[in-house]
């Protein structure tokens, strides 16, 4: 890990550590009360989950159609981060729902499609892990199919009747709630970018190791 990456991880960890005090200062939501504070973690991780899916899809497209070998490493990194941030989204969501809706889970379009996207990236990573040679291209094709779910998930709450709050919640957020939200969002984004960078580097270094072994075999 480079010094810069360590610094960014430390900084975002520090921001996450002080986040409870900033979130505590925010007002309570009128109908959901205290449990609505899960929102400050749920929203950033959900957005970054969708961002990760898009990065994975776009890099896969670059790899597949424009033959950029490095793009494959970025796609794999994004898929893994999608799995991590998706897990945070899918765990914090039900914790919030338990109190706000009275149930852990409902099969509404937003929840179902988020779970689906998470399953697609789990399948993608299973393929990359156990597929062996040739799985990189197949994975890229799979990631493109995964990415088309992203806009669908984003608008699903506005199209269908559902319990999940709409996307208009965020732009209409009062300042008292907006400050902690964007604070958390900044911490999560910094973490995301750093981890994505490190994970992609891991993949690129792996490719170098493989190339060196190949060169050694030939020599």
């Amino acid at each position, binding site marked *: 890990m480079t010094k810069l990456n360590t610094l960014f991880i430390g900084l975002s960890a520090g921001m996450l550590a002080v986040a409870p005090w900033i979130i505590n200062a925010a007002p309570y939501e*009128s109908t959901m*009360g*205290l449990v609505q504070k899960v929102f400050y*973690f749920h929203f950033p991780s959900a957005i970054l989950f969708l961002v990760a899916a898009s990065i994975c899809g776009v890099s896969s497209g670059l790899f597949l159609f424009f033959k950029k070998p490095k793009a494959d490493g970025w796609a794999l990194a994004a898929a893994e981060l999608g799995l991590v941030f998706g897990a945070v989204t899918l765990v914090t969501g039900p914790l919030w729902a338990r*109190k706000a809706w009275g149930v852990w889970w409902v099969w509404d379009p937003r929840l179902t499609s988020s779970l689906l996207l998470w399953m697609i990236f789990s399948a993608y990573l299973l393929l990359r892990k156990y597929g062996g040679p040739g799985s990189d291209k197949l994975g890229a094709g799979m990631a493109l199919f995964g990415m088309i779910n992203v806009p669908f998930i984003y608008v699903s709450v506005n199209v269908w009747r559902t319990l999940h709050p709409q996307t208009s919640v965020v732009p209409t957020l*009062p300042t*008292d709630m907006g400050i902690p939200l964007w604070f958390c969002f900044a911490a999560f984004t910094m973490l995301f970018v750093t*981890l994505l960078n*490190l994970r992609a580097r891991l993949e690129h270094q792996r490719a170098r190791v493989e190339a*060196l072994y190949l060169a050694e075999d030939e020599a």
Partner: protein
Amino acid sequence: MRFCRVFVFLVAGAAAAPALMIAAQPPPQSEFVPVDEVPPGEQIPAINLVATAYGFVWVVVLGYVWSIARRLQRVEAELADLESRRK
């Protein structure tokens, strides 16, 4: 390419389909309204859920950072080893 026309036809189909998806629906919550006080008797169970969510974020982030650091260290050690052997 020859399937361009098929492609255009399919895209037109995709564009037309959402027109069939409009249905009268009651509006879900569209904004959060802030209040200063929590209704009494609400705090005890909710705080556990919020704390669990916060704890989960920490567990996942720390676990993942540790996992990346470990894997990266191993690969970079291998790389350094290979490169020193080449010289």
